[in-house]
């Protein structure tokens, strides 16, 4: 294909995106579109499965049977999200095994929030409320993204995430209605998770290089700072309603802007965690690698058995 043909294909492609048409796996797409989508969808998938670890840490210690079942179901939903997202990425011509290799060798990223530890039961509430809440802000916009399989995965994921968010908030609400010790546990969780949650929206707009291209492809519909502001505006009243204090002395309502003003994120901490120096980066990656390594013989056995079955079937047909 010569350059002129590629240019005209790309024009048609761009017009389709502008007209809100979905791009499907077999459609022509620019190489950069394909690569960017593999990167973003697989990062999202990795975040789901690494995200199972901090919450999974409390399944065995959940305080009641009702909470245990709800948490187990939530973590299972995340495995399901990982599965749809890997499948969506596979439609772009890469295998799940390749994507997992990228996660395990450290070349692929996942959401840094999961490199923070879950130290108390209240952290399970804080993750549901804040982390799933922040994720929804990003993901609702992606329901209308241009790539069909990703957009459709988002519809289902968003429904489940918003259920998780309510569940997390309800855990904290219950703690705030409980004893002094329980209220302190809830406040401590918010103190530790608030700033990492704001970091989930990524660098400030003036330091976010991919935004323009991603906006064009509808991989992004609002900028990092707009989403972060929307999250703060939504979350502050929810905290106040149950008596939690946001750990930010600079936080105040700005009548003129119609938004909350809030303090500066510790961008040095943000960079450190992205670079692998967060509290649990090594543990998370090692847990994923160990699961994969310990499962190798199981996956090989399943393949060996399937091959034997196929041989037997063809033998039976031949007879």
């Amino acid at each position: 294909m010569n350059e002129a043909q590629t240019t005209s294909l790309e024009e048609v492609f761009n017009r389709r995106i502008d007209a809100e048409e979905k791009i499907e796996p077999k459609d022509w797409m620019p190489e950069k579109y394909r690569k960017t989508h593999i990167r973003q969808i697989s990062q999202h998938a990795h975040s789901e499965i690494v995200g199972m670890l901090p919450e999974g840490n409390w399944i065995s210690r959940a305080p009641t049977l009702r909470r245990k079942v709800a948490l187990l179901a939530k973590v299972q939903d995340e495995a399901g999200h990982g599965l749809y997202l890997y499948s969506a990425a596979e439609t772009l011509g890469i295998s799940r095994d390749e994507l997992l290799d990228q996660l395990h060798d450290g070349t692929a990223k996942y959401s840094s929030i999961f490199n923070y530890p879950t130290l108390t039961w209240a952290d399970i509430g804080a993750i549901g409320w804040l982390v799933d809440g922040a994720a929804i802000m990003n993901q609702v916009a992606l329901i209308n993204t241009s790539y069909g399989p990703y957009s459709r995965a988002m519809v289902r994921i968003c429904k489940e995430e918003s259920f998780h968010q309510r569940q997390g908030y309800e855990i904290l609400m219950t703690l705030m209605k409980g004893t002094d010790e329980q209220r302190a546990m809830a406040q401590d969780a918010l103190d530790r998770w608030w700033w990492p949650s704001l970091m989930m929206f990524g660098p400030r707009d003036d330091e976010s290089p991919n935004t323009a291209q991603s906006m064009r492809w509808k991989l992004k519909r609002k900028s990092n700072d707009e989403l972060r502001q929307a999250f703060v505006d939504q979350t502050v009243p929810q905290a106040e309603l149950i008596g939690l204090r946001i750990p930010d002395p600079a936080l105040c309502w700005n009548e003129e802007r119609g938004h909350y003003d809030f303090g500066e994120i510790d961008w040095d901490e943000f960079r450190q965690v992205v670079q692998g120096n967060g509290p649990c980066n090594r543990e998370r990656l090692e847990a994923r690698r160990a699961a994969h390594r310990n499962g190798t013989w199981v996956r090989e056995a399943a393949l060996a058995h399937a091959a034997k079955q196929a041989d037997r079937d063809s033998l039976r047909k031949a007879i």
Partner: protein
Amino acid sequence: MTAAAAPDTRTLADFVIGMADNDLILAQQLGKLCGHGPNLETDIALTNISLDLFGQVRSCFQYAATLLGNGATEDTIAFLRKEHEYRNVLLVEQPSLDFGHIIVRQFLYDVFHHLLLERLQFSADETIAAIARKSIKETAYHVRFSADWLVRLGDGNDESRARAQAALDHLWPYADEWFLPTAVESAAAAAGIGADLPSLREPYQRKVAAVLREATLELPADTHFRKGGKQGIHTEHMGYILAEMQSMQRTYPGMQW
């Protein structure tokens, strides 16, 4: 045969709790594996089984709590007993050493569990019968899942076969305890509420043998069967399972979560 008089409430509660303790401890063990499976599909499937079992536990313990009264709840029963008060068989507390052990433990229990529920769906106690009828569909799926995997591992490659056989050699001695009735189980069986447990041994061994044949695995010879869990005398693994499971309720007594 005329059924004996209905057992007293305490005996009935003990019967329901003892039955569900197997599900509780196995579900707890499976829950801990969530996020660490060989692939996402098996992770999701084992979590499903764990969720089914916890669901069955909750139905049983809620029923037992109404029988016991006196402030008992599903959570006081699940979390606030001493080790010797748990009546699960030793099999379910055995550790998840590798996927072979996880599948063999699951298969050996699932086959028994399904046979038990087949009987309990006709229990003279309506609540037990209703719980069994609901659970039996789930448990039929558990048997299918664990039997399929056992065949895949046994009839897979050399390594998987060796691992599955090692797990079977290790766990088979725990696969007879459930046929030995306690006084509570005998009373429940006599009243038409429980099952005649020794009569399940023959169909159990037949089903296990059929799957093992397909899996090209062999039962160990001259097995000395282990027992004691149903009397509350557990293995050393049990203390750690409970320490973890009970930690919140023990650290923060009497709080709402």
